């Protein structure tokens, strides 16, 4: 055996596995885009579209009131993300920086409830929301957001310094804590947004008709006037549903990875 492999073999060894994996991961996604550009008659008969059919995208926007449901999703996702992040920051600040009798036991409670499957909690919540007449409104999400989550972590030294100078807890929170927690808060806001935008279970059970979200609308296929499925237009709709997320995510990529690295494991 030669002591040093040639650089060409070395490069192949380094790049081949990652290229194969990336192709396998991207291929199903690329196929959605390819299908969205076909004529409906080309679906199942030819592998690639003869000419890209951008008309599918127009149909996806007009065959149902796409923008209305997109707006619903946007309103619901962003208000949830905004509220939950603000509340979580405040509560996380309380847990991280303040000592009081009962704090330890409360924290154990938080951890214990995290283990309970979501559905166990959701079923009684559903009953409560129904009895209070909150189904088919956005109130359940607002209430969930107001509950917040005490899992934000921030550097400690800053507010110790502020306390020495005599600032009160709220002043520390707004003037020192919040500005410094920026990246972590932005990352968790993005994840909260993604969660609501993508969630299918809760809107299907809690919302209906015009109030529902794009996720619910996208779960059924577009059809032609005779009720035949239009897979090509459906794929165009799926692309339009996902594209804003991908753009959003690409813009915030660094944030997100950093946010996970700093909060995900050590939280």
């Amino acid at each position, binding site marked *: 055996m030669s002591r040093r492999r040639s650089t060409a073999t070395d490069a192949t060894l380094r790049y081949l596995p990652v290229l194969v994996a990336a192709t396998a991961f991207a291929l199903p996604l690329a196929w959605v885009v390819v299908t969205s550009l076909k004529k409906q008659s080309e679906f199942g008969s030819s592998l690639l579209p003869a000419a890209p059919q951008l008309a599918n995208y127009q149909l996806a926007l007009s065959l149902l009131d796409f923008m209305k449901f997109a707006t619903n999703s946007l309103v619901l996702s962003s208000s949830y993300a905004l509220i939950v992040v603000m509340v979580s920051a405040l509560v996380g600040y309380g847990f991280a920086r303040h000592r009081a009798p009962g704090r330890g036991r409360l924290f154990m409670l938080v951890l214990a409830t995290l283990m309970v499957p979501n559905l166990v909690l959701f079923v009684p919540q559903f009953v409560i929301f129904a009895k209070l007449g909150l189904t088919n409104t956005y109130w359940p999400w607002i209430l969930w957001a107001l509950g917040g989550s005490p899992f934000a972590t921030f550097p400690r030294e800053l507010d110790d310094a502020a306390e020495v100078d005599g600032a009160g807890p709220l002043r520390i929170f707004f003037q020192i804590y919040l500005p410094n927690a920026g990246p972590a808060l932005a990352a968790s806001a993005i994840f909260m947004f993604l969660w609501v935008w993508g969630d*299918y279970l809760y809107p299907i059970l809690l919302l209906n008709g015009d109030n529902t979200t794009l996720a619910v609308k996208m779960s059924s296929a577009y059809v032609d006037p005779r009720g035949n499925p239009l897979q090509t237009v459906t794929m165009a709709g799926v692309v339009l549903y996902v594209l804003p997320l*991908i753009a959003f995510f690409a813009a915030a990529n660094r944030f997100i990875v950093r946010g996970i690295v700093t909060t995900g494991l050590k939280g």
Partner: protein
Amino acid sequence: MTGAAQVLDRPVARVAPWRRRGLRRAVTFYLLISPWLIGFVLLAAIPLVMAFLMSLSNYDGLNLEYVQFVGLENYLRAFTDPDAQHALGRTLLLMAIVVPFSLALQLALALLVNQRIRFTSLFRTIFYLPYVIPVVAAAWVWKIFVDPTGGLLNALLGVAGAAVNVRWLVEYPTVVLALLTIWGAAGGGMVVFLAGLQGIPAEYREAAMIDGANRLQVTRHITLPLLSPVIFFNLVTGIIATLQILVQPMLLAPGILGLSPGTVPPRDNYLYAVHAYLEIFVKQLFGYGSALLWLLFGVVLALTLVLFKTSRRWVFYGIEP
């Protein structure tokens, strides 16, 4: 409370400063966490008690007048319900396929994108993308990818000379579900592994290299042991998530009009959470369904505890960074 009041009634100068400070800190603490505390009581504590009481009753989700206490009947019923047993079996099978494969893939991807190669951020994005794609879109991605006529998978198999008219969602629904799950979870696990890898000081690997270890040996004897806490974390979260899979099998149910809620998935993809969901929201058996969900919680808890017990033997917490 009286103790605190007495303390405050005394002349201020006599009170130990730490005590006043302690009371103020406690008030501040409870004020700061009050939104969460109220939310916790209303959205977690009360529902938990309700969920437990419900599981002991015949509640149908509508009429409180007819609610009767039925004791452990719902729980006993679960043990004789053939659908529940079938569903549990399929769920454990899916877990046994998905979790080990996912862990290996996530670790491999993290190692691949942690190399000193070009375009790492592009590769990371490609692997991470499926993780942020909404479940409805992901279900469509796979539904169209494995479509008998319009799908790429059959076309590729056709090029390879194999059968070309496989109806994947009907004949092999669990394969598609497993692919969707593994593909969708890979990026999340990869990022966690990547953070773990980057937390290993480079000197450890370099020292081993100087001592003559090759890349494989370094991975096996240096990287993997130091990563074991991360492996353990991904293993536990992977198991908990897989046991609770609910919407994916319903969204993947075959049918040309696409995805619809409350659809009974093919028998092979009839998972435990699906069974509980259908019992509750379709058959309106809130009592029995709640019992099923508590039993699922029991399985999750038991598996987690077993894993924590065994973790002492293979998870390495030796080096503090």
